[in-house]
């Protein structure tokens, strides 16, 4: 059974504007899937439907065997097990770094302050930011903030991770420090769904690449197939543009 199943999912923002058109795909346990495509193609929306941050009008989404689309009361519990990293980090600016990492653990998972803090420090060490535990998000660089955001997801012991353009808002010199953490995660076998334009990252760690355009999954292929000989014209066109330099 796949970790994430997306089946015939359609979403409309209003009756005239359909953002997702009959999208179907699946992510196996331990698989890394990169979602790419031109802006406005619906890739961010698609990834946000997985933990129901974006509701859908049609189709079914299953995570770890649980139907997310019909779930109501247990949704927060499920979300806590799905790690999410946002384009603009979205750390909580009024909480210290360590508090950012403890909030979900104590309130959602019911861990003790001490246990939460220990876990937080362990994950901060992992992303190389132990020294910044007592600072506020606003005092860190973008790259550091995004690493904290990844740590904030990891402290919840997620069964899979969703990344929504995690490096798009970063200065070029900070992109690699974030990608390094993600590559590390992928190597450890974390199930990951990553919306990104970083084709280097995709080539390095992705198992599969999904290409979206105008709300449709146009191509869903093994990495080598996708980069080697994309079937659709639109994917070829997209690749030729972003790999030109």
């Amino acid at each position, binding site marked *: 059974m796949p970790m994430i199943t997306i089946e015939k999912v359609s979403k409309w923002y209003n009756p005239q504007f359909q953002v997702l058109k009959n999208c179907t795909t699946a992510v196996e346990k331990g698989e890394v899937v990169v979602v790419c495509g031109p802006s406005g193609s619906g890739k961010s929306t698609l990834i*946000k439907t997985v*933990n129901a*941050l974006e509701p859908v009008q049609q189709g079914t989404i299953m995570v770890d065997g649980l139907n997310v689309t019909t779930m109501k009361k247990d949704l*927060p*519990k*499920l*979300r*806590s*097990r*799905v790690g*999410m990293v*946002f*384009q*603009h980090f*979205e*750390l*909580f*600016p*009024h909480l210290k770094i360590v508090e950012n990492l403890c*909030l*979900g653990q104590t*309130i*959602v*998972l019911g861990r003790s302050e001490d246990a939460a803090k220990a876990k937080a420090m362990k994950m901060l060490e992992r992303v190389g930011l132990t020294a910044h535990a007592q*600072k*506020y*998000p*606003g*005092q*860190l660089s973008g790259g550091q903030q995004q690493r904290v955001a990844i740590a*904030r*997801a990891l402290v*919840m012991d997620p069964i899979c991770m969703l990344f929504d353009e995690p490096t798009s808002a970063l200065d070029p010199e900070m992109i690699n420090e974030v990608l390094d953490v993600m590559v590390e995660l992928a190597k450890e076998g974390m199930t990951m769904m990553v919306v990104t334009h970083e084709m280097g990252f995709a080539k390095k760690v992705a198992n599969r690449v999904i290409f979206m355009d105008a709300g449709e999954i146009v191509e869903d292929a093994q990495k080598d197939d996708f980069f080697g000989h994309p079937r659709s014209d639109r994917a070829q066109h997209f690749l030729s543009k972003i790999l030109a330099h």
Partner: protein
Amino acid sequence: MNYNWNWGIFWDQTPDATGTYFGSLMSGLQVTILLALCAWFIAFVMGSLIGIMRTLPARWAVFVGNAYIEMFRNIPLLVQLFIWFFVIPELLPGDLGIWIKQLRNGPFIAAMLGLGFYMSSRVAAQITAGINALPKGQRMAGTAIGLTTWQTYRYILLPLAYRIIFPPLTSEFLNTIKNTAPALTIGVLELTARARSMQEFSFQVFEAFSAAAAIYLVLSAVVTIGMRILEKRLAIPGFNEGK
């Protein structure tokens, strides 16, 4: 202008022989402060509640919140005070209405409710604005780590929103203090009422109202300074410090 200045009037006894005019003004000030604090409590609690409602995903909550604001914001304060004092007791079932009308603190309670609900509509508008000013991703981030809607408000949105709207909230509190003055029309013996009675008894109109004006100014200055200090203490490094 033929006017007998007499700045010593404050130390004269009032005709009712309960103390000096100064003492009378001070007891008015006490009532003003107490009324402002009680009204602010209502304004803050109700304003927060309604302000939050207007940011919820549920349409009915937004509608109720909007209706509340339009009602309390768009009826003049004086009319609202009259409604609370003269009309509402009549509408209540017999005994309760009579009991309320005979309350010794009746005018104070009516003023507190009237001013509190009037100001709550303004506070609500500020709270809504504060919450809406936050990046949409903050709500999503809270939701994504598994917080419920209530927890997201409690731990993330509200602590940030209150900090953002601290300056306008300060000015709403100052407005609450100033808006205690109309309460004299329903018989609350607050500062302005005391100044007016001083003027009526002593004919020292300039001294009486200069004193009242000065006291309001000092009171506002104290509040402003206090709120500035509080704002600094609540400031978050890298978020809203150093303004």
